[in-house]
């Protein structure tokens, strides 16, 4: 598979379509663009020492691979080249820390109020920037003192929905577990409302942040463990749903394509992995979705994150949200919010990430909406940080509509 990624450079006809779509090279001259860094530079790479530092300015949003009409795996070529560069030069402590959200969250959860206060303190953030290289203004999420897993365990049996046949596994990811447990509860509620019994197996990080920071072998350890936790359910034919489009993409495709993982466990999990809106839109298509929605009188700008588009599933969130009476959804045309997972947190990249997202931020601000929607957690945090508008997962709007109906 890793051979296929590199070999795909042969398909490049130099048309430059990727360069015209790249949100990063449009925002900064420091990134010379996906065609240069991808199929062009790759021909000059070997096991020799890595020489092209500009590669590190790729945010990994993956838009280039999506728009390439010839099928060049541009973003994947870049990821692999960057990992090789990092392996040669070493990865800074900062990247090692931010690439392990579940580790830092486990440390912070018991002292969540304190940790949140500290991270909200501008003086401390300056210190963190100086010592760690995390930008003082970068959007960091707030820790919860009651992680989603704990909440699910403490949920009384009477509250849980038991179904005979329709069961679904919820892969909630680190974002829901440690930062947005309410979203997880709403996702469970929406699934139960549609007749599913929701199984929440123990789970840890998928390894995506490690992969995007070039820590491939560490990423492999995480993704293998997760795949092996989820594989028994997948083999039993249960769908696995996720509210995190980037983590589910990791399991669907990226661990295989970028890390070269080809285990049977990952393959079967990949087959059964669905974005939650994808699954619900399937129900809708079969006429099985519970459509008893209450009115939600709102105008909501919706941004489909890059990683969501990487699924190649269309816009199921839009298909679902348009069912809600009173809800006006304004689809955003701007490509990327800039954050790209952990990219925009970094001191040297924060300004680039903010510049990348500017067209999106301006468009959302101009609408004057009180709330916006987006499927991916880090994108929500970035948009909220830049615009001051609270950003929710589309599931939260569905949940609101179901609750309003009750």
């Amino acid at each position: 598979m890793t051979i296929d990624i590199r070999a795909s450079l042969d398909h490049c006809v130099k048309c430059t379509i990727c360069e015209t779509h790249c949100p990063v090279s449009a925002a900064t001259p420091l990134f010379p663009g996906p065609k240069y860094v991808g199929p062009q530079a790759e021909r000059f790479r070997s096991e020799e020492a890595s020489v092209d530092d500009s590669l590190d300015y790729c945010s990994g949003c993956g838009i280039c691979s999506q728009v390439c009409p010839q099928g060049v795996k541009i973003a994947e070529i870049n990821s692999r080249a960057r990992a090789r560069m990092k392996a040669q030069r070493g990865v800074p402590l900062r990247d090692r820390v931010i690439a392990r959200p579940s580790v830092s969250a486990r440390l912070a959860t018991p002292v969540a109020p304190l940790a949140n206060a500290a991270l909200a303190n501008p003086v401390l953030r300056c210190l963190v920037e100086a010592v760690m290289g995390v930008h003082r203004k970068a959007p960091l999420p707030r820790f919860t003192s009651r992680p989603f897993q704990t909440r699910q365990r403490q949920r009384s049996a009477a509250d849980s929905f038991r179904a005979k046949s329709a069961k679904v596994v919820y892969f909630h990811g680190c974002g829901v577990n440690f930062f947005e447990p309410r979203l997880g509860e709403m996702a469970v509620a929406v699934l139960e409302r549609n007749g599913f019994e929701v199984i929440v197996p123990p789970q840890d990080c998928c390894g995506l942040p490690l992969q995007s920071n070039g820590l491939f072998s560490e990423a492999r350890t995480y993704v293998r463990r997760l795949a092996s936790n989820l594989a028994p359910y997948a083999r039993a034919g249960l769908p696995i749903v996720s509210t995190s489009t980037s983590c589910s993409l990791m399991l669907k495709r990226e661990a295989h394509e970028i890390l070269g993982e080809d285990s049977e466990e990952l393959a079967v999990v990949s087959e059964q992995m669905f974005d939650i809106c994808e699954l619900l839109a399937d129900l809708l298509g079969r006429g099985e979705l519970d459509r008893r929605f209450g009115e939600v009188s709102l105008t909501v700008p919706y941004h489909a994150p890059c990683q969501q588009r990487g699924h190649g599933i269309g816009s199921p969130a839009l298909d679902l949200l348009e069912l809600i009476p009173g809800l006006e959804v304004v689809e955003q045309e701007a490509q990327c919010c800039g954050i790209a997972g952990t990219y925009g947190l970094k001191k040297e990249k924060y300004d680039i990430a903010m510049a990348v997202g500017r067209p999106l931020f301006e468009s959302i601000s101009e609408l004057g909406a009180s709330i916006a929607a987006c499927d991916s957690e880090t994108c929500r945090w970035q948009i909220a940080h830049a615009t001051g508008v609270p950003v929710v997962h589309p599931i939260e709007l569905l949940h609101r509509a179901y609750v309003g109906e009750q």
Partner: protein
Amino acid sequence: MKTIEAEVLVIGGGATGAGVLRDVCMRGYGGLLVERSDLATGTSGRFHGLLHSGGRYAVKDPSSAKECMDENRVLRRIAADCIEDTSGYFVTTEKDDPSYSDLFVDGCRRAGIPVEEISVSAALNAEPRLSPRISRVLQVPDAAIDAWKTVWGCVRSASDHGGRALPYHKVTGILREGDIVVGAVVEDRAGDEVRIRAGFTINASGAWAAQIAALAGCGGFTILPGRGIMIAMGHRLVDTVINRCQMPTDGDILVPIRTVSVIGTTDEEASDPDDLRILQDEVDRMLADGETLVPGFRQVRALRVWAGVRPLFKDEKAESSSTREVSRSHRLLDHHDRDGVEGFITITGGKFTTFRRMAQDSVDIMGAQLKDERACHTHEEALPDSEERTYYKLGSRLAAREERLHDEQIICECELIGRRALENAMQRRGSSDLDDIRRTLRLGMGPCQGGFCIYRSAGILHSLQRIDAASATASLRDFLQERWKGLHPILYGDGLRQARLDDWIFQGLLNVEQLQS
């Protein structure tokens, strides 16, 4: 008619001629080289780029093997910037006789070629695209060598020692006074004749050597042109030279050179060294052979195919019929001994790897004839840019480009050539022929085969050299025509898709065929 004086005239601007020019100049003679076309456009610029360790000849031709290894060591010392230290594997595939590999090891040891067995798994780890069906891997110090850089390096070195090369000066006659050769008549690019009077003339015209010797009235030998095709694949499939461990045959070498991998080669006896035809059947055979070394080879983009001719020497009485059976060692003909003609010798045969040795032997013979024996120093002094003795690295252009990312326009995106390098080369070469610039910089040699850089370059040529639009158009069209020769026999897959896009650009947008020139 214009007349030029030279102490020594060298005919032929391939590796041998350039090596001879450098050698005579380093020995203190005033040397002048003439070449009918651009430098290194005959056999030297048309090979796969393999700097032999000698392994290929270890069993069959031990003296050639030893000579290759000796010269391999010398070139690594004096021409490091032209060489990428790739190393080489001899692999036993499922199609090869496994018993050959023992003979190979013995042959290498006898020829002084360092050979080391490495495990199949280690080889596959280093070269993951290599066929997993190989059963044995032997490593030797093969390398990749850039022919144009080497030849031009020799000429630059020669000019540091007072020599000069005249490309596009075609020999039309050899001047004789009685039994003494005293120079040649050449025709320049404009079609004007120039007379060159020389104290000594060295015929280093390789596959054309018999034609030149005949102009001097010397015969009795033939050069059998052994035509072979090579295909450059779009990127590096391997970073180590891969040879089949078997008696040398067709399609058994894969050379990673610069940004491509070259598979070679066939061997067809041609009647004329200028017969560079490419047969479909040969292309098919080459791709099939590539598949044996690298599974999936046919899916890789083929960039370009070309043919070159080996100069294989045959004395009239030799009986062998197949060119491969003729010795590859070089031949030096002292026409004084052979034909009673003084002041004239011919050097031919040989291999690119041994060009320096061939030059040394030639100039030694010249010294003997002139009774003026001077010592050779070509093995001691490094070529320009190779003084540091650091090998060329694949990533060097990328590293250089990174430095200029923000202040220089890129012209050739595939080969990462910036505007300054291009303008410098155009000024230095003083040529309005884009194909000359191509060989100087590898302009337009990447995957798009000039599709995006050549119209840009034609414009820059026009603005720099103040040539008129019609000449710039002619140069552009000539370049495209030249590229097309190497493209049309391999139009399939990604290469075909590229050719269609390039065609839309040049025919559809620029209407290049109808432009006035």
